[in-house]
């Protein structure tokens, strides 16, 4: 009898195992979280102007350092810097021999700028370390042995232009900021002829014929309209290429006459969306192409040679989309990043000599050759008729019916979703959820009207756009109405919390990663150096003093009593926009009301978690949380 029982047990185990194996064939294997969110080891690829070297930031001794690839002689590739307690933050090619770089130990660290010679490896400091922030000014390169950067050491709220020399000359302030200038454009001869000033809501373009003349206002934009200079037209010091939506809804490529103060002509535009940056060559001072993205990126070429090169690259990437990261002066070597929705791709350089791609690094080697989910472009109508675009990523091996859904509103709201490889969406789809991302009104890239439609609509029409999309997907039968989670970071997190407060019926649970719990706090900590933008924030969100009633109405922290669904909250202790005190209060209230709440507090982190273990932990908790409340 006993023997029989044992045999029986063994038999059952075998059967169960077989059944288990049978199931796993149909179900997607869970790819480890680490594979999705590991930080790449090699980043920041930049090619030297002569196309002989590629420099990148890699890891040595757990610290980010600059490495150099010699394209003509791979064997003489080398490590350029040897920081072992600091990270190289960013660098630029000054010329064919000098690389200028900044290092820091932690965020908000002192400013340290150095130059390194790639032939001699000699490193020299360009300034004394100081408590300040700096910005590169485009095009960033050496002009008469000096690099021009913007530093806010005089007054933390304004940046002055400094020229720092690599030949031992003393650095000098070449343009003191009267207080409102926030962008500068350097001509090829090193003169700063063009600046953009921003007076609270209005921005104005200022021009001077050369460094010795005073600036004159060329045009002044009311809020919402903008002009983004790209560079001077070839052989001209008065005409520029610019992206502008003055007098039109979508950003279009125009030529502008700074002296005549008029738009010369529109070069290219798209009816549906704003143009992207495209490609203006600082070397040739010509537009190579304009680009725009409705669902996938499209390019419109002005230069036949470039068009041919891109055609060749397209053939080589075998259908993958690609972005250009950097090109040399001759447009001879092009660093690109390939990607599709299901493939994180790799970084290559294309060499026009041998017409071939050369791989520099894989973007996410752990995800190579894994089965990943396709992302599809969608459009739907919001309740007031506005067309909202978005993307749906379906889990593999599932009927596209009645699926648990994760709604993933993007951060911003001044951002947009585009088609491409999305780690977060892939991670969630791999866990069996259909992922819904949308460009709610207020997202950028769809024109002035669409953007400004989101003004003062936080928790209002923006939230309705998200809700309408979810309702649409329920009606379509794609989403299971009882298993919908809303997950987001920053503004997306705010939307999730808002939904938890006011739309508990629709969602089964909500996840906020650095979501804004209190919009008063959001304003309180706008740092001094973005004060010029304050009025803009007032326009976009509202004025916390004059419209405090509305602020109270839309801030989740005041409505924690209305939350009826489980909430996961991840919060960095140094997050500028939402304070730990508010988050604590919110969590405490939920606990008092017996609402299940999961709270991840990382004191040392900011708005975006930087430490890999913290990122992984967040996604682990997210995985568990979603499994529990909308999983099978």
């Amino acid at each position, binding site marked *: 009898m006993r023997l029989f029982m044992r045999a029986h047990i063994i038999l059952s185990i075998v059967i169960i195992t077989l059944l288990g194996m049978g199931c796993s064939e149909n179900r997607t294997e869970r790819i480890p979280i680490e594979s999705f969110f590991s930080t790449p080891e090699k980043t920041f690829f930049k090619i030297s102007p002569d196309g002989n070297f590629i420099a990148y930031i890699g890891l040595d001794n757990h610290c980010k350092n600059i490495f150099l690839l010699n394209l003509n002689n791979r064997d003489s590739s080398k490590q350029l810097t040897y920081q072992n307690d600091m990270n190289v933050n960013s660098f630029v090619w000054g010329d064919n021999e000098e690389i200028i770089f900044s290092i820091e130990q932690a965020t908000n660290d002192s400013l340290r700028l150095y130059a390194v010679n790639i032939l001699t490896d000699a490193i020299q400091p360009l300034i004394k370390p100081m408590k300040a922030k700096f910005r590169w000014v485009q095009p960033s390169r050496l002009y008469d042995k000096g690099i021009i950067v913007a530093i806010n050491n005089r007054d933390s709220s304004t940046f002055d232009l400094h020229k720092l020399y690599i030949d031992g000359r003393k650095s000098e302030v070449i343009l003191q900021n009267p207080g409102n200038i926030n962008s500068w454009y350097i001509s090829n001869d090193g003169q700063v002829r063009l600046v953009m000033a921003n007076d609270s809501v209005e921005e104005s373009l200022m021009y001077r014929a050369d460094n010795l003349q005073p600036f004159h206002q060329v045009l002044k934009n009311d809020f919402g309209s903008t002009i983004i200079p790209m560079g001077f037209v070839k052989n001209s010091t008065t005409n520029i290429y610019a992206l502008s939506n003055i007098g039109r809804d979508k950003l279009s490529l125009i030529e502008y006459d700074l002296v005549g103060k008029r738009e010369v002509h529109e070069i290219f535009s798209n009816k549906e969306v704003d143009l992207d940056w495209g490609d203006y060559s600082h070397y040739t001072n010509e537009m190579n192409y304009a680009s725009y993205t409705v669902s996938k990126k499209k390019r419109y070429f002005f230069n036949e040679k470039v068009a041919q090169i891109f055609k060749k690259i397209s053939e080589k990437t075998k259908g993958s989309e690609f972005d250009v990261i950097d090109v040399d002066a001759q447009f001879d070597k092009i660093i690109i990043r390939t990607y599709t929705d299901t493939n994180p791709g790799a970084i290559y350089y294309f060499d026009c000599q041998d017409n071939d791609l050369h791989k520099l690094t894989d973007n996410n080697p752990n995800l190579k050759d894994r089965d990943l989910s396709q992302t599809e472009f969608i459009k739907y109508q919001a309740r007031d008729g506005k067309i909202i675009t978005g993307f749906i990523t379906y889990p593999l091996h599932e009927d596209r019916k009645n699926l648990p859904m994760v709604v993933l509103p993007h951060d911003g709201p001044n951002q947009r979703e585009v088609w491409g490889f999305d780690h977060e969406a892939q991670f969630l789809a791999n866990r069996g959820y259909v992922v819904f991302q949308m460009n709610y009104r207020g997202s950028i890239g769809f024109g002035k009207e669409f953007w400004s439609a989101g003004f003062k609509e936080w928790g209002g029409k923006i939230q309705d756009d998200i809700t309408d999309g979810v309702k649409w997907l329920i009606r379509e039968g794609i989403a299971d109405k009882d298993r919908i989670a809303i997950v987001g970071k920053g503004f997306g997190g705010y939307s999730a919390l808002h939904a938890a407060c006011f739309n508990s019926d629709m969602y089964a649970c909500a996840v906020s990663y650095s979501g804004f719990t*209190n919009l*008063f*706090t959001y*304003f*309180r*900590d706008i740092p001094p150096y973005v004060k010029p933008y304050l009025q803009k924030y007032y326009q976009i969100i509202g004025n*916390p*003093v004059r419209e*405090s*009633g509305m*602020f*109270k109405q839309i*801030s989740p*922290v*005041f409505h924690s009593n209305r939350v009826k669904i489980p909430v996961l909250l991840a919060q960095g202790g140094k997050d500028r926009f939402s*304070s730990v*005190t*508010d988050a604590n*209060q919110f969590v405490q*209230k939920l606990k008092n009301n017996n609402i299940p709440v999961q709270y991840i507090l990382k004191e040392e982190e900011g708005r975006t978690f930087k430490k890999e273990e913290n990122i992984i932990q967040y996604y682990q908790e997210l995985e568990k949380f979603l499994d529990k409340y909308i999983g099978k």
Partner: protein
Amino acid sequence: MRETSYNYRKNFGLLFVFFAFVTLLYFVVVFAARNYTINHVDNEFTNRKSEVFDLTLVPFNDFFQNRVPEVSFYQGYLDSLEAGKYAYSVLSSYPFVKEIAFYDMLFSNDVNALAGFSINGLNIRPKTLSIFTINNRGLNKRYITKREEMGPFNDELNSMGIKIASYIDKLQSSSKLTDRDILRVFYATQPGRITYLNIPRINDLLVYKDIMDTKLDHIVNYEQDMFVFNVDPTLLEVKNIYPNLYERIEVVPIVRAPITSDVKEYVTEMPLPGALADYKLLFHSGESFISKEVNRSFFPIVLGISLVYLILLVILYLIYRNLEINGRLFKLQYDFINNLTHEFKTPVSVIKIAGNNIKSAPYLSDEERIMYGNILDQESDRLNNLMNKLLSFSQIENKTIKFKKEEIDLNSFVDNIVASTQLKHADFKISKEINVKSSLLADPVLLTSVFQNLIDNAYKYSDQKRKILDIKIQQNKKNFVIIFRDEGIGINKSEFSNIFKKFYRIKSQYNQQGSIGLGLAFCKEITEFMGGEISVKSEVGKGTTFTLIFSV
């Protein structure tokens, strides 16, 4: 037949001792329970006050822990209009908050500002100062603008200013705001008043520090909000959740001594915390009130104890009854053995004598041999008969025999029995009248023994000259009715219920021998076993009628 004097031993003394003990225990327990109840009520009076205290303070704690810190959510952006809305919601939901003063504060490094509190270049002054109260018409606002009116409100400002300044002074850029700091610096609690300054971000505090270190070269203004809540503890709503324990609960100043009066009173108190600290909760109850409570809680206890006592008494009665029944059973069995031995004794002794005579006689004549043979035959038949009767009776009792159903033709069945009886008793006159259409479904052996018994009884209990039996069988729609009517000695009505009992015999000259009192009991058992009924009617001296009823 003589009465048996043997008896089952019953010890009623033990039962009595048990009863006495239980009763004593009952009174002891009731007494102890009463003492316990008095102590319990006394303890409850002093212990339950903390629950009343907690419940009474629920709104205050909610106000202090949730509503006051809510000010910080506004991050200093409150103006007097929005502050009014906040004040209205607080004043209307917490009646013990009497008045709210709102200081719309500016922290700045403007040394030219004359008003407010200044320390090391940090100027803290209210832009506006509004006082909110509530009446039945709604929110009542008063703005303080004149300097002379400011007087009483300056204290709060100054003491908050000093606290903030000394905290900022010690602040390091790496410092973090701990909960302890928050409570110590941004709350000021004194009896009757709570002052709260919205908690600044640590970055704001660092700017204030820079101001105090005169590091800033341009004028900055930072908004902060300060609220002063005046609370009146006497307006706290006391939640007396133990109206049975506390006759009266009051909020009185902490210094008031309990008034002693002639009437004895139970009194206990509990001081209120924090901003309410100059008041206490005073709990009173009169002596009669407390004794009423004692009685009230004693009643169910005494009820419970009595119930247990009653159950014990019932058990006692059941034990007594059980003893009685056992006694009767014992008597019955004793009778049985007694009678049976007697019954067996007669034939056995006759056989013994016959055997002895045969043994001692030198020779036996044919006459003698036949006589002794007849005697031995008769007596052994009698023994056999006795044993059969006993055996089948105990079988029926134990339900070990099976009921064999057969169709019985009553005419021939009765003829056979009557013929064999008259063979035995030539002087027995049996008449019969059988009027049936169908046959009866029954066990013939068992039915024979019922008939035999009833016929034997009729013969046995009849006068020598009137040995007459009339058997009538009729069939109606449902039943066969079988009637045996004799003209014997009859049975007294009072014996009707007893004659069917085992070993019961009516004392009479007719049953001196050959009867053990099983016949009728046996008949009843068998009849009922076969699904029939048996009943008796009789008149003393005139005769007896037994009626059997079987269903068709």
